[in-house]
């Protein structure tokens, strides 16, 4: 039985401090892998098509939860994070930390796997490329708190 130590963090934001505890990266990768297996077993498509579906739904889910939804799911912090998306909240807003680099690498690796297993054919490669470009640009340090054309700005 393998044990890990959980050191208490200095992150006061309960919405993001869970990402600093051990085991998160592994859980994330396992969820992606098992959803690929699930899609393969439920539909009868090729492995490449399954990876494309995984990549695209990963794009939709992570874009919605990391870069679109703002604030925290509880009211105890009196709304001081109500203008920040989850991506802008993690690590107290510090850029280029290990967690952020990991989360930027995952969509790129998924893109490479999805493109390779579909042999770079149209139309899958178009959707995959659009997805990865949007996700990676959303994670740039220069995009911190930037709202293009006021989309998703404050109410």
């Amino acid at each position: 039985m393998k044990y890990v130590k959980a050191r208490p963090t200095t992150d006061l934001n309960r919405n993001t401090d869970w990402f600093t505890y051990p085991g998160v990266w592994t859980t994330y990768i396992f969820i992606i892998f098992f959803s690929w297996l699930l899609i393969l077993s439920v539909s009868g498509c090729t492995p490449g098509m399954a990876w494309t579906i995984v990549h695209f739904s990963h794009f939709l889910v992570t874009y919605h939860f990391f870069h679109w939804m703002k604030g925290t799911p509880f009211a105890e912090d009196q709304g001081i994070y109500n203008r920040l998306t989850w991506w802008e909240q993690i690590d107290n807003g510090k850029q280029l930390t290990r967690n952020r680099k990991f989360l930027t690498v995952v969509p790129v690796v998924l893109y490479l796997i999805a493109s390779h297993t579909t042999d770079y054919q149209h139309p899958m490669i178009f959707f995959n490329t659009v997805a990865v470009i949007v996700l990676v640009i959303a994670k740039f340090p220069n995009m911190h708190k930037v709202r293009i054309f006021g989309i998703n700005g404050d109410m």
Partner: protein
Amino acid sequence: MITIPYLTALTTYFSYGLLFAFGQLRDFFRKFIDWWKASNLQGYAPICLGLEDFYIRRLYLRIQDCFGRPIASPPDAWFDVVERVSNDNNKTLQRTTKISRCLNLGSYNYLGFAAADEYCTPRVTETLQRYSASTCSTRMEGGTTALHVELEQVVADFVGKPAAMVTGMGYVTNSAILPVLVKHGGLIISDSLNHNSIVNGARGSGATIRVFQHNTPSHLERVLREQIAEGQPRTHRPWKKIIVVVEGIYSMEGELCKLPEIVSICKKYKAYVYLDEAHSIGAVGKTGRGVCELLGVDTADVDIMMGTFTKSFGSCGGYIAGSKELIQYLKYTCPAHLYATSISPPAAQQIISAIKVILGEDGSSRGAQKLAQIRENSNYFRSELQKMGFEVLGDNDSPVMPIMLYNPAKIPAFSRECLKQNVAVVTVAFPATPLLLARARICISAAHSREDMVKALEVISRVGDLVGIKYFPAEPKKHELVEGREKVE
């Protein structure tokens, strides 16, 4: 440092992810269905933005019956818990007239003053008849009675400081004092696991807040050096004052503060120390004077000592103890003293009588017995739980012992199973604790007898096997080892 089995961490994240996903799905369908219904807001803004109460609506309400259970008797070692039923899957709960007699492992009843006491209760009822239930006034107007003056003197002597000030509510003591002590331009450095009252008081003060890693004096020193070198944000002027806020016993961990190191670091860098002894006053230390006595720290080195009367003294209210000048200043400026109703006279009498019992001034040795009893009880219970293979946090001598649960489904399982077997425990989850580290927090009291604790251990062991929270290997019982040796010979 909490040790988690790796597989448990993975399954806990996955469980919370699943709960979150289902909650989002239900919210999506709710939004879709509500789009067709007319809104009854009539132009007013909604009270909740829709995302703020996501945790309450989709996670907390599912297991609502594990929290907020009403009780029907004083919170002694055994008490009556009112049963509740739900007809709509835990969205609302209705009280029934049935009560069950349960063993109380959740109340902060460290010295057993929560129930009727042979010395305190007659005096409290006499005070109730003499002074009536409330002073109906603030301290500045008509709310200072002879009892209040005596109480402040007794508390100051007990804690070991020249003077003290008493307020009617414990939470308010922190959240109303911190804004008075530090203002904009000052710095508050607080432990990362400090109580919500300190966090709210610090946020309300307008000072800059910095957090240091829980109970790590080396990190505190690093933060202090960095902040003193940088000065105030943007202007880089020197800080007006620096206060370091720590707690005596951390209520969610049961750990004692590393007070001697922290006090020496603060002395080196000339920062003030604010010690919140809510859980440790009256419960630890040879004569019950708290964490300073236990760890051998001179009370003159701690600048501001704060505590509450709800835990060890069986009453309500809080106090601040410090130098005479500090208390005089607070009496002119603190809103809890100027504008809030003063502490109720029977409650004040309960505190005075409890302190007299603890110090042995009532002519018996019950105080010393209670203190020895709680220390023995805590050490026995903690060591037995650890032998069974549970992961129990907290230091020796601390009466608070959290048992780690981790998975979100184990929280209601543990709580409900224990209640079925007539043991009432308190479980704590996100967001009071970090997401991964949900726990069941046990508070041992001097009123628990050896039979009570043995029964509690049996029930917890059975439920622990059923729920699967014995994360460490159990120690083999001694007589099994001896048998093995005999067989070999």
